[in-house]
C-alpha cells in the first residue's frame, strides 16, 4: 500500500481525529525528576520481531500523557495512598501487617516490581506479584486472599510498583522460568476466538495503527497497574489480558490462571529495558 496515500485518505475520512502513524517522540519525566525510558532497543529474544520497544505512554494523547507526568495529576496515586494504609494495618488471625515482616515499603520493595513475575524456588513455580501478595496474606497473616484483579490487589501492586519507578524491567526468562516463558510465548502467538486474532496480530504487527478509535500500542505491561480514564479505576495486567482475549470473540482465561501467569511473564519480558511506570495513566 502507498503509505502517503493511505495517510492522506485517513486525514480526509477521520478529519477531527489526528491520525498518528506510530508512537510519538515525547519524553516522560515524572514529577520533574524520574526519567522514564519509554523507548529502547528490543531485548535479544525478540530481535526477529521488532527492533524497538515502546511504552504504551507513547501512544496516548498529549492530554492523557500529561496526567502521568505529575503525581498530583495522576488519578492512580490515590490508590497508592490507600495501599500504604493497608501496608501498615494488621489483618488476619496472626495480627500482622505487611510492615510487620517487610518494614518500610520504600526500602523492602525497591526493585521488586522490575523483576516480577519471578521463579520461586520453594514453591517450584513462577509467581506474579499478585500471587506473592496473596501467599503472604494467606500463609503469613492468616488473612483472606484478595480477588486477583480486585481493587485492593491493584492498589497494593501500585504501591509496590511506585518503589521501582524508573528502574528497568528485567524479568528472567531462562533457567527454571524458561518453560513458563515458552508457554507464555505460545499463547502470545496463538490466534484465539472467532476473530482468530493473536496478541501479536494487534500489538506486534499493527502497533501504531488505528483500530477503529484505538491507537494500537505494543501492549506492554511496564506501566501496570494502570489507571484507565475509561473505567476510572486501577486495572491489573490480567484484567487487561482478559479484555483483549474477549475482544477476539474468544473464551478468555481466568485471571491468575497458569496460562495468564505464563503470558504475563512473556509479555513482561517483551518490555525488558523499559522503565517501571506503574501506576500509569491510559484512556
Amino acid at each position, binding site marked *: 500500500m502507498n503509505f502517503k496515500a*493511505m495517510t492522506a485518505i485517513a486525514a480526509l*475520512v477521520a478529519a477531527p481525529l489526528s491520525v498518528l502513524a506510530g508512537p510519538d517522540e515525547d519524553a516522560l519525566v515524572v514529577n520533574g525528576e524520574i526519567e522514564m525510558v519509554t523507548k529502547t532497543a528490543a531485548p535479544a529474544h525478540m530481535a526477529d520481531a521488532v527492533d524497538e520497544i515502546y511504552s504504551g505512554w507513547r501512544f496516548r494523547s498529549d492530554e492523557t500523557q500529561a496526567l502521568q507526568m505529575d503525581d498530583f495529576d495522576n488519578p492512580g496515586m490515590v490508590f497508592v495512598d490507600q495501599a500504604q494504609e493497608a501496608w501498615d494495618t494488621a489483618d488476619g488471625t496472626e495480627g500482622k501487617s505487611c510492615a510487620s515482616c517487610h518494614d518500610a515499603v520504600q526500602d523492602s520493595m525497591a526493585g521488586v516490581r522490575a523483576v516480577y513475575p519471578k521463579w520461586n524456588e520453594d514453591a517450584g513455580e513462577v509467581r506474579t506479584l499478585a500471587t506473592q501478595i496473596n501467599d503472604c496474606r494467606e500463609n503469613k497473616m492468616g488473612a483472606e486472599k484478595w480477588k486477583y484483579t480486585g481493587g485492593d490487589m491493584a492498589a497494593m501492586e501500585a504501591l509496590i510498583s511506585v518503589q521501582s519507578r524508573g528502574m528497568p524491567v528485567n524479568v528472567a526468562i531462562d533457567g527454571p522460568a524458561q518453560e513458563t516463558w515458552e508457554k507464555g510465548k505460545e499463547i502470545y502467538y496463538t490466534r484465539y*476466538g472467532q476473530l482468530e486474532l493473536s496478541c501479536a496480530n494487534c500489538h506486534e*504487527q499493527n502497533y501504531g*495503527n488505528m*483500530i477503529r478509535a484505538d491507537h494500537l500500542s505494543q501492549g506492554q505491561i511496564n506501566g501496570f497497574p494502570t489507571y484507565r480514564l475509561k473505567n476510572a479505576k486501577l486495572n491489573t495486567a490480567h484484567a487487561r489480558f482478559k479484555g483483549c*482475549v*474477549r475482544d477476539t*470473540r474468544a*473464551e478468555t482465561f481466568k485471571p491468575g490462571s497458569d496460562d495468564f501467569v505464563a503470558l504475563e511473564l512473556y509479555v513482561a519480558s517483551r518490555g525488558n529495558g523499559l522503565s517501571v511506570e506503574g501506576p500509569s495513566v491510559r484512556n
Partner: protein
Amino acid sequence: MKFASLTLATALTGSIALAGQVGPEDVAFNDDGAIEASLTGAPGDAANGAVIVGEKSKGNCVACHQVAALADVPFHGEVGPPLDGAGSRWSEAELRGLVSNAKMTFDGTVMPAFYKVDGFVRPGDAYTGNAPEGPLPPILSAQEIEDVVAFLATLKEE
C-alpha cells in the same frame, strides 16, 4: 431514521431461512479464494451492506479499513488497506470470497472470516468471554455477506 428502517429490513430478511442458501460448511472456494455462486441466490442490497460495513455490532469493517463512501461513520482504522476502489480491483466472486474467509485469498491475513463456524481456538459466545452454549453462528449471515459484497462492488476507482 433511514438507519432504523435498514436495520429492520435486515431483521426481517434474516429471519427467513432461505431454501437455496449455502451454509458456512458448504461454501465452495476456488483456487484463488473466490466464491462464484451467490450464497443465497438473491441479489445483495448495497444500502444494507453499507450499514453492515460501518456498524460495530455487524461487520465493523471500518475498525480496520477506511472507506471514503462512509465518511459519516466515525473512526476508520488502518489495519487493512482502504476499501476505496475495491469494486474495480476485485470481481464479485472474489469479493464474496474475501468477506466470507479472506484467509483463502491472503494466507495468514489478520482479517477475520465472516462466514465460518468452526476450526477456532477457544471460540467464545460473541464478546462475553464465555464459552458458547451451542454451535456458533457465522459473524454475518449469508444474506448479509451478499449485501456487503453488493456494497463493495459499488466502490469503483475514480
